[in-house]
């Protein structure tokens, strides 16, 4: 989703000809190139650059009515990072708050999605009903996150007559029903699991396509050399998959930093404030009447994403050039 526009806006040039050299020919090329990309640039400018600059500007004001209304300096950022325990509470260890929850999301969600997606990709290529298995696992990806939230609300319901999970635990195992979304210690993981369910299919499809792209000769050569299946996976497939894995990881990372919808549907950040994340904080603050503070949260979120985007592109470039 995030890397598509990148390819479309790359400046065009003929292979082998360096850009920017002061010859007449290249000047013409540059002009032509600019002409070609101008519609895209205009679109980016109005839809992305302007809103971004506007958001940054609003973040230095109170932002009542969602517009810039006078400079207040770094007050919003100062409050966000040091005086808002719902966002970041460093008074105890480990720190808590929306930022800490997002870290939890990053670690658990990315790890689980990758491990499960990779495992399924490797396994499904080895079974007979490959396409059917893949289709089944991919289906949740086609469901809107809000609907995923509603589905899992039912799964997690503390009432064993409604909640599948508690029905199994209570009915078959005799364990007292657990209120997965009502308990501070479980609520984040419960929501993360439902999101993993929804995105594992995507990871699997991308990685299994990449696996298919590995030349069969390489695998056969390894086999001839006496490698067992695990060694083939670990020493041959995994290294060859490192690029798609890193691309998927960045995709998951961006997904996780902006996660909002599923939390809004499932817990509204509760119980208390225990399942708030960065994007949820931005929403409640912005539309609760503190536009400037919400904008500061948005800018903070943007800053978090930049290194990962850059990393991805660098990786993308270096791989494309070899």
């Amino acid at each position, binding site marked *: 989703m*995030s890397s598509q*526009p*990148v390819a479309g*806006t*790359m*400046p065009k040039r003929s292979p082998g000809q*360096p850009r*920017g050299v002061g010859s007449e020919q290249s000047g013409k090329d540059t002009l032509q190139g600019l002409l070609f990309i101008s519609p895209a640039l205009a679109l*980016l400018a109005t839809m*992305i*650059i302007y*809103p*971004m600059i506007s*958001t940054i500007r609003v973040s230095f004001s109170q932002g009542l*009515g*969602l*517009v810039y209304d006078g400079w207040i300096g770094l007050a919003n950022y100062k409050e966000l990072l040091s005086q808002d*325990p*719902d966002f970041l509470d460093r008074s105890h260890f480990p720190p808590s708050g929306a930022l800490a929850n997002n870290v939890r999301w990053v670690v658990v969600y990315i790890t689980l999605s990758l491990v499960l997606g990779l495992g399924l990709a490797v396994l499904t290529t080895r079974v007979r009903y490959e396409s059917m298995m893949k289709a089944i696992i991919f289906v949740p990806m086609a469901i809107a996150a809000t609907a995923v939230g509603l589905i899992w*609300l039912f799964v997690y*319901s*503390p*009432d064993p007559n*409604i909640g599948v999970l508690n029905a199994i635990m209570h009915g078959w195992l005799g364990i007292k029903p657990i*209120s*997965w*979304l*009502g*308990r*501070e210690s479980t609520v984040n993981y419960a929501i993360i699991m439902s999101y993993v369910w929804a995105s594992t299919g995507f990871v699997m499809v991308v990685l299994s396509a990449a696996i298919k792209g590995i030349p069969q000769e390489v695998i056969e050569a390894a086999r001839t050399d006496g490698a067992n299946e695990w060694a083939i996976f670990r020493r041959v497939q995994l290294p060859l998959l490192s690029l798609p894995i890193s691309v998927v990881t960045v995709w998951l990372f*961006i997904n996780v*930093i*902006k996660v*909002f*919808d599923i939390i*809004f549907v499932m*817990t*509204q950040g*509760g*119980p*208390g*404030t225990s399942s708030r994340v960065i994007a949820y904080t931005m*929403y*409640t*603050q912005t*539309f609760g*009447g*503190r536009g400037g503070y919400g904008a500061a949260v*948005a*800018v903070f*979120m*943007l800053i978090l*994403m*930049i290194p990962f*985007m850059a990393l*991805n*592109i*660098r990786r993308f*470039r270096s791989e494309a*050039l070899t």
Partner: protein
Amino acid sequence: MTKRRLGVLAAVAVLVAAIAATVSPGGSAKTTAPAAGSVSILSLWGGSEKDAFLKVTAAFTKKTGVKVNYETNRNYEPALRTKLAAGNPPDIAIIPSPAILLSFAKQGALKDAGALGLSSSYLKARFDPGLTQLVTYKGKVYGVPAKGNSKSLVWYRPQEFKKYKITPAKTFTQLLGISKKFDSKGKTPWAVGAGDGWPLTDWFEDIYIRSAGPVKYQSLFTGKTKFTDPSVVKAMNLYTTILSDKYVGGLENALGTKFVDGIGKVFGTKPSAEMYVEGGFVGGIATQQTNTKLKPNRDIKFFPFPTINPKYGSPVVFGGDYVVAFKDSAEVKQFVKYVTSAAGGKVWVSTGAVTSPNRTVPLSAYKSPLVKAEALQIQKTKAIRYDGSDLLPSTLGADWQSALQKIFKTPGDTKKILADFQKKADREFKK
């Protein structure tokens, strides 16, 4: 050169990330062009509330020929703020929170009642002055009360009460007694939809207004009394005493239960709890959505939330909706006139979904026995006060819900949670 292109790409990537960060996740910003002879209305009503309102607008169109373009958005506040920032608000909006309403009035976005052709004597003849006072800014009234519900109701199943020889409580001590009795019979006395924060705020408000009195109640929710006040701590003790782990079927269980699911616990086909405290709208949801076999007064009934300090009697905490106007066209004027008229009110209450705060709407217009009883409670009470959490400036409203969830879960931390909340309140009320 590769580096330069990398730079361009990185910039693009940043922009892409920026979309992800700045795109509003709120509701759609669909707008309807105000054609001649029509009004556009935005509200958060869905289900039976929406159906009831559409009957009112249909009657209005029939009478005046003015078309109504109605739009529902559960997240009305983000919708209104973005539409307003874009210079494209609806003609009319329905706003339940006086605090949010006033924030729009302060922005200069709303038309006052005078500009809409409603004189103060006209309003005085119809509405409790307390209700119009709440939406008054610099001497001008910026909203007219449209409909409302009592939030001081204890819903129960009459058959269960009969079975265990229990009579409705008159005092809080009796209410605790009923809870204890159900508990001793192995029943769960209370269902609480604590997964949504707002049912807890209503619980607290009912307790606070009865233990500290209506004056202190008003002063607390308008920033004059501090949330660290001993009266608040005392009310919180009552709140956590009755909403204890064993009386609500497990605190975590309650925190994982949403408002509508809580109704299902008491009035569903497989009930697992006995009583539910919430507004008059519970009746409509229970009988029309949860379990259509319910018979009012036989399977579902309520009694007023019992008194705590006899001095303050049995006040009503009232949750309602205001009609506000962003424009003052002739059609808008016609509409506000109609919804505040007895004729409009009659159509509305006859749907059985709402009560009207309009005094000129006769009790005989009510068709549902439950709603009629509720309207009677509102008319008879000595003190009527607006839902406190709706009086809090908006970000505080959400924080207050979170705070009440926290206190519900860890009563031992009450004082610390209240102190934290007061810090936020200091900042918001100062504005």
